[in-house]
Structure formats: C-alpha cells, structure tokens
C-alpha cells in the first residue's frame, strides 16, 4: 500500500522525490516537531543526569562540587560496608514481605468482587481509596495510628486486654509495621489489574469446566489461574519495582530506623547523598539498585519464556 504521506508505510530515509515538493518536506519534519519537546526534556532531565550519575560513581566528592576520580573504589567499598549489607537484607525482607502478600490479597478480592454481589461498585471503590492518598499522607496517618503511647491500634489492643506493641519504636516490629502499611496501599492496585484480567476471561470456559464436573476450586486452578499468568507476571515485576523504589512511607514513618532496622537500599542512597554528603558513594549505591532492577526484569522475562515453552 502506498500512502501519499509520511504515515506508517513511509520509508525512514528521505527520498529525493520528497525534497522536490515543499509540502512533503514540511511533513517529513512534522514528526520531529511533535516529538521534539519530549526528546529535549528527556535529554536534559533523564539522559544527562544518568550519564553524570554514572560518572559520579567513580568519583569522591566531599560536598556539592567537583570530585576527584577514584576509579572503582566506591564499588569496592560496598563489600565491606556493613550498612550496605544491612540495607540489602532489609530490601529483601521488605520486598518478599510486601509483594506476594499484596498480590494474593488483591487476587482474592478481585475474584470475590468479580461475582454479582450487592454494593459491588461501592466495595471496589473503598478498596481503591488508599491508592489516591499521597505516600506522605499515608505515612503520617499510619504513624499516628501506630503511635505507641496514643495510637488507636494500641488503644484497641488495650480494650481487648492485650499489651501495647512498640509498632514503630522497636527494631523487631518496625519492618513488620511498614510491610503492613505498604500492603494496605498496594492491595487496591493489584485488585484492579486482576479484575480487568478476570473480566476478559470468557465465561464459556468456566462453564465448560463446570459441565465436566469441576469444582469451583478446580475451575479456578485449571482454567482461571493459567489464563491470569501474563497478568501475574506483569504485576510481579511492577510490585517488585514499586517495593524497591518505596521511599515516601518509610521516610515519613521511620526514616530508616530505629537503628537501621528499616533502612532499605533506596533509603541508604538518599542518606549517603543528602545526610552524609557522599555523592559518589550514593551514585554507586544507586547503580547497584538499577542493576538489581534490570537483573530481576531479565530473569523474570526468561522464566516466563521458559514457562511458555514448557506448556
């Protein structure tokens, strides 16, 4: 098919014939004008900072200013930095604590709310509300609810006759409380995505399984769950990315403490850069985080491909 314009089938190279005609030339410039602002902003505020960050990772800087090149010192230091290892371990605990929990609850809610129920729309909206609140707002509300002395959580425990729990003031509890709060904000998102996927599964499939005498549970595992696999895969990647980048709630609720019990990697990057003023080291930490993110995405993609080949 030949079209007289630059849409879709146009060859990428400008042909001599185009240049003969002024109207055509203006058309061949048009896409650059449309994408230009985005490309410039991308260059200035994404690409240049990324390149500079990579450069910083190989420098030593005392304050905001010029640094000296130190080669791979910053990366070598990582291995012997106990706080780096602690933050890696905390990141792992936080991610493993939040991601599967939020996804399982989200899936259960989606399956439940996919059935005809009274007030279904209202229920869906209620589960969704936490997503609208800013991380900081969630952080201050939850700090207040889980306040050891005056918080409503401990007040309610007192009514039942239980002891006060140091939700955010003890290193043993703080991570658990944070995971609880982040799951609370994440459940609605998982529910919405799963709900969309469930609604696209044709009813005939489930009915066919029902005719074959499959129980509700069997129908879910043999029909619904396999069809949800792509959605599960995407949600897993997204949730891991969200958890690795979770900052606001942790910053407001614990600031990484007590001690360093809730200092996750991203918290440590911020600390190194803006509290310890070690920009070079912070950049190196940041690159480690990006490497983990990329590695996870690649592994996940390979696993998905393998699973598809086996099936």
């Amino acid at each position, binding site marked *: 098919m030949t*079209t*007289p314009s*630059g849409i*879709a089938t146009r060859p990428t*190279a400008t042909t001599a014939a185009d240049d003969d005609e002024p109207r055509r030339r*203006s058309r*061949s410039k*048009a*896409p*650059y*004008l*449309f*994408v230009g*602002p*985005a*490309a410039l*902003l*991308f260059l*200035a*505020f*994404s690409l*240049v*900072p*990324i390149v*500079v960050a990579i450069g*910083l990772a190989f420098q030593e800087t005392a304050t905001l200013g010029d640094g000296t090149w130190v080669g791979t010192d910053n990366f070598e230091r990582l291995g012997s930095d106990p706080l780096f290892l602690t933050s890696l371990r905390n990141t792992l605990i936080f991610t493993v604590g939040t991601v599967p929990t939020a996804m399982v609850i989200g899936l259960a809610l989606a399956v439940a*709310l996919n059935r005809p*129920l*009274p*007030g279904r729309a209202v*229920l869906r*909206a209620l589960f*969704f*509300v936490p997503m*609208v*609140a*800013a991380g*900081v*707002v969630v*952080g201050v509300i939850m700090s207040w609810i889980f*306040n050891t*002395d005056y918080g*409503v959580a401990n007040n309610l425990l007192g009514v039942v006759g239980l002891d006060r729990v140091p939700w955010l003031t003890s290193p043993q509890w703080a991570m658990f409380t944070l995971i609880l709060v982040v799951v*609370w904000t994440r459940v*609605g*998102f998982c529910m919405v995505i799963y709900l969309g996927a469930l609604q696209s599964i044709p009813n*005939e499939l489930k*009915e066919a399984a*029902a*005719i074959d*005498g499959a129980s509700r549970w069997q129908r879910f595992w043999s029909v619904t769950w396999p069809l949800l696999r792509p959605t599960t895969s995407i949600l897993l990647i997204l949730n891991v*990315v969200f958890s690795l*980048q979770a900052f*606001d709630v942790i*910053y407001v609720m614990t600031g990484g403490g007590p001690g360093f019990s809730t200092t996750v990697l991203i918290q440590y990057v911020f600390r190194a850069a*803006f509290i310890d003023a070690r920009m070079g080291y*912070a*950049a190196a930490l940041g690159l480690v985080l*990006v490497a983990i*993110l990329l590695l996870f995405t690649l592994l996940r993609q390979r696993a998905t491909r393998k699973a598809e080949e086996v099936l």
Partner: protein
Amino acid sequence: MNGVRNRNLGGDRTGHEGGARRGGRNRRWLLFAALTALAMLMIFPVYWMAVSALTPGGQSQSSEFYLWPSDPTLANFDEVFATQPVWHWLGNSMFIATVGTALSVCVSLGAGYALAKYSFRGRGVLYAAFLVTIMIPIQVTLVPAFLMVARAGLVDSPWAVILPTLFDVVGIFIARQFMLGVPDALLEAARIDGAGELRTFVRVVLPTCGPLVGVLVILGFMNRWNDFLWPLVVLQGNENLTVPVALSTLTNNPAFSSPWGAVMAVATVTVLPLLLVFLVFQRQFVQGIASTGIK
C-alpha cells in the same frame, strides 16, 4: 442465554441443584459480610484521620479514646491555618500540579502522536530509550538533577519542581497506545482536504482523544499533587513548600506541643481534593492507574 442453559445442564447432571443454590446464597452473604468488614478496615485509616482532625489535640491528650469525634470542632484547622502558611502550601501545590500537568500532557500528546502515526529515522531507538527510564529510580538521578537545577539558580522556585517532571514516560506510553487506534483514514481525509500537519493534529486527531486526555490529566495531577522526594530536595523555604513536603515537616514542628491534631488537619486538607475528584471521575481514575500497569 447459552450460559444459563449450560449451568442448568450441569446442575441436572450432578443432581445437587437445589442444595448448591441454597448453600451458594448463604456463602454469598458470608462473602459479602467478610468483604464489607475488610472494606471498613481499608477505609479506617482515612476515617481516623478525619476523626483526629476534628478532635482537639487529635485525641492524644485525653485518657479515654473514642472511635468517633466525641466533640467535633474545627479548632485544629483554625490553629494550623493561623500559625502555618497552609494557604501558601496549597497554592504552591495547586500551581505546580496545574501548570505541570497542562504542559506535560501537551508534551505527551505530541510525542505519542509522532511515535504512533509517523515513521521517522530514529523512532525505534528514541522510544526504547524513553521506556528504559521507567527502570531508573529517581534517587539515582536525584543528585545530578539537583546540581543542574542549582546551577540554573532555580532552587526554591516552583519551576524547579515543574521542569524536570515534564517528561513523563508513562504518559507518553499511554498516549502512543491510544493514538495507534486512531484510524489512518481520518488523517488522510484531513490531508486531502489540504490541512497542514499541525492543523490535522489539533483539529482532527485531538477531538477524538477525549478519554485519553481525561486519563492523562487525572493521572498527571494526582502524581504531581502527591509527589514528595523531588520537591523535598529542591524546595527549602517554609513558604515555598508543597503540601506533602510541609506535612512531613509538621510532625516534629516545635510550634505544636502535640502536633497530631494539626498534622491530621493538614493531611485531611491534602487528600480531600483528590478524594472528591476520585469520587466524581472514578472510572478515569481506575482506568488511568490500571493503564500504568500495562507499561
């Protein structure tokens, strides 16, 4: 229709039709009760925020506590609005969110259109480079971006918040996906009528993009209104803060003996606008947040 007949057939075959149905109804009510209880739990923190905001001192001074505002009063709001520049904070947030969203949506629409409807040299590379930035956490680019903004003398200005966030990969992605669905015939017709490229875009393509613009505006506004880390880094003077940044400083503000009532009042003021917009434009909200999931 088919579905109903099939279900009956299945029931006849197993012979438990009646029993299953009665059991199903009970189960459904049980499910409904469980879901309602869970929904109450989900909404409780937001409710508690409002209750604490309406109770003097946020209930922290009284030895007893109530699950509802025992003596509702706006005293917390009065106090915090009188002693802190809350109106400034709200104004800053509103300016940044409105101007930032408007500009960013224009940028995303243009980029999405070019990437979807033109084939030009470097398109694939450019789009791939855009998408990779989703992987890069803001903390990595935070320091270099801050140094750039500082060198440009923009620290403490709303533009320091607006400019670096104008490039919105997710917005461009959503715009491109939507524009792919705009029929080429429509563009051809406009061109045959002699419309220029810009005119074709503004007069022919954009009017078909209502739902897209709705999603982009809602998503863009929400993300900017709620944004925290970048404004925290580039804004410094108390008068220049956005509401979330100000809120985070309020918990250890020495001006309040017991800050919780004031904090909850400002938290309420922060979520209320978005909550109202959410209630009105629920579908676009859900659609917008869901579409970030497809990236």
